[in-house]
């Protein structure tokens, strides 16, 4: 679309050198992943100096309207910039426009909007592609021959979930020897993940592999498989990198984890926004990349930086 330059030095409510107040909004509060985003954002703020990060979000990723309201409320507060992850790409597009209309620059992290205004950058990884990779990993791990696999999704109807499920399924399509025999949601609850995995295992005694699409799903699936004494016999490809997931990876319960770089998302979001506000650097999208962590590479320095990000040694290049 046409380029609208709304964020020139003229329009900002900002005194370029003064203190900045940025709103950083995750899809939802309440997961290790988003806390890492927060850490990255705060790290960038601290390094830039004189920047306050206001961290606020809805409680579930499905509360799309709640997030629209939240963004509106931040616009009302006239923060200097908004960095956020859209719970729903299209539903949040008007909210982004509203912010821009109020001369508040916006940067998206993790998930963008659709349409995405050209002045709004996106710092994210491609869920769909990464989930496709996960299918490939699963196929590699299982090797030739026919195998039954299952999918533990987390929140049907939420966008990230849909992207991962679709990405995984289309990735799976390349492997006719893998048959998807079960798909159940965990609702981002470990107990629930464990319950559905147990039941899937009962119904499919020959199950050979599971792809679990977020932290809670992975943990519940791993526990169910362990409780059924099938650890190592059922391959788990997971997502995210909560401490127990890493422990599972080390012990061999989990074969591989798709790990995004949430720290970098938060860091880029704030860092680029501050530079934009202070130095008028145009905002440009960047891929924050995914890492496939396995038992083999887990101790490499590069992976360590992603898994245990700290502001002293940020996983940002």
């Amino acid at each position, binding site marked *: 679309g046409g380029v609208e330059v709304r964020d020139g030095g003229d329009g900002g409510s900002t005194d370029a050198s003064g203190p900045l107040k940025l709103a950083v909004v995750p899809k939802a*509060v309440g997961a290790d992943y988003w806390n890492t985003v927060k850490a990255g954002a705060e790290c960038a703020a601290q390094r830039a100096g004189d920047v306050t990060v*206001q*961290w*606020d*979000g*809805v*409680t*579930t990723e*499905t*509360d*799309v*309207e709640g997030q*629209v*309201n*939240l963004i*509106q*409320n*931040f*616009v*009302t*507060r*006239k923060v200097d910039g908004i960095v956020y992850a859209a719970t*729903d790409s*299209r*539903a*949040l*597009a*008007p909210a982004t426009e509203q912010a821009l209309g*109020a001369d508040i620059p916006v940067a998206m992290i993790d998930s963008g909007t*659709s349409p995405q205004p050209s002045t709004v950058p996106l710092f994210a990884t491609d869920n769909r592609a990464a989930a496709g990779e996960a299918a490939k990993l699963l196929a590699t791990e299982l090797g030739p021959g026919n195998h039954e696999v299952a999918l533990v999704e987390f*929140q*049907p*109807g*939420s*966008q990230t979930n*849909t992207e991962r499920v679709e990405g995984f399924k289309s990735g799976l399509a390349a492997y006719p020897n893998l048959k998807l025999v079960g798909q159940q949601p965990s609702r981002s609850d470990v107990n629930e993940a464990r319950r559905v995995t147990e039941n899937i295992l009962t119904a499919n005694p020959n199950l050979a592999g599971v792809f679990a699409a977020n932290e809670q799903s992975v943990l519940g699936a791993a526990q169910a498989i362990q409780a059924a004494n099938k650890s190592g016999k059922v391959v788990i490809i997971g997502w995210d990198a909560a401490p127990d997931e890493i422990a599972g990876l080390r012990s061999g319960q989990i074969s591989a984890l798709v790990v995004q770089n949430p720290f970098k998302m938060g860091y880029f979001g704030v860092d680029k926004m501050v530079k934009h506000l202070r130095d008028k650097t145009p905002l440009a999208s960047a891929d924050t990349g995914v890492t496939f962590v396995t038992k083999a590479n887990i101790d490499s320095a590069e992976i360590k930086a992603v898994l245990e990000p700290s502001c002293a040694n940020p996983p940002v290049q």
Partner: protein
Amino acid sequence: MSAVEATPAARDGVFTDRLREWVSHAVAEFTAATALVVLFIALSIASPYFLTADNLFNIGAQTAVIAIIAAAQTMVIITGGIDLSVGSVAALAGVTGAIVVRDLGFPLLAATAVAIGVGALAGLVNGLLVTVARIPPFIATLGTMSAGRGLVFIITGAVGVYGLPRSFQLLGNGEIVGIPFAVVITAVVAVGVAFLLSQTRFGQYTYAMGSNLEAARRSGIRVGRHLTGVYVLAGVLVGLGGMIAASRVNSGQPNYGISLELDVIAAAVIGGASLFGGQGRIVGTIIGAFLIALVRNGAVLLDISIHYQQVIVGVIIWAAVYFDQYRRRRLESRG
């Protein structure tokens, strides 16, 4: 305290009656309204952004859907029932409205009619379950809540309904002379339902059934038909609310309205409705809805994290109802 003599009823002037009735109602909304005003003033002082046209506009638009659905919930609560299915039904209506626009090219008005129809149908199911199958409302609507959400997922394939024309946003994001369209609709709905409840036979029966269902039945009220009517009307409003919500985010969201029922029930109860039935007024409910909205809005403006917000919302719900109960206890009308 000027003690009112136990005079024979006939001597009481009609005007005095009116006045008393009005005063007693006003007192009933007093607590919630006071809380609302206090909060409003406090926020005006605490945040420079609160008392801006934009912010008030936003609060209005944000609260519209909740208020409409809370009005529906209030009707059901007055009958002594409860409707847990509002969230699912609103999602179902919104999603259906969006689908008929996207896939069948319905104009907005027709799509809204469809959404309302979906709501009415769900209300009819609730009503028949309660009256014909005699399932207690809590359970009947719990079932509808579960089944309704399942239906939403089935018809959408668990993917949001996108690709809607810009015009779809009118209901939720449009405005008339600077007032959000959604607020105008809410006002019309609120006045309409309030009128219905307080001035018409339909309203009278609604209170009567909630007060004593058996007495209503013995008084010759066709309670089955009438109760079903209340659920259907509530469904109509929920359908409308769901459509506005969809319009606001320009898409049909299958996950819309999860745990919405708790918010709207809280609004009704804060506004003086009794879950035992027979009591409740729309004015109070609207005040309750705005009270909750204001807390949420204020929390963001004052940079209070969502976690503390939840604690604060909990405490405010307690406080509002506590003071209301305290006031009632002093009246001891149920002594």
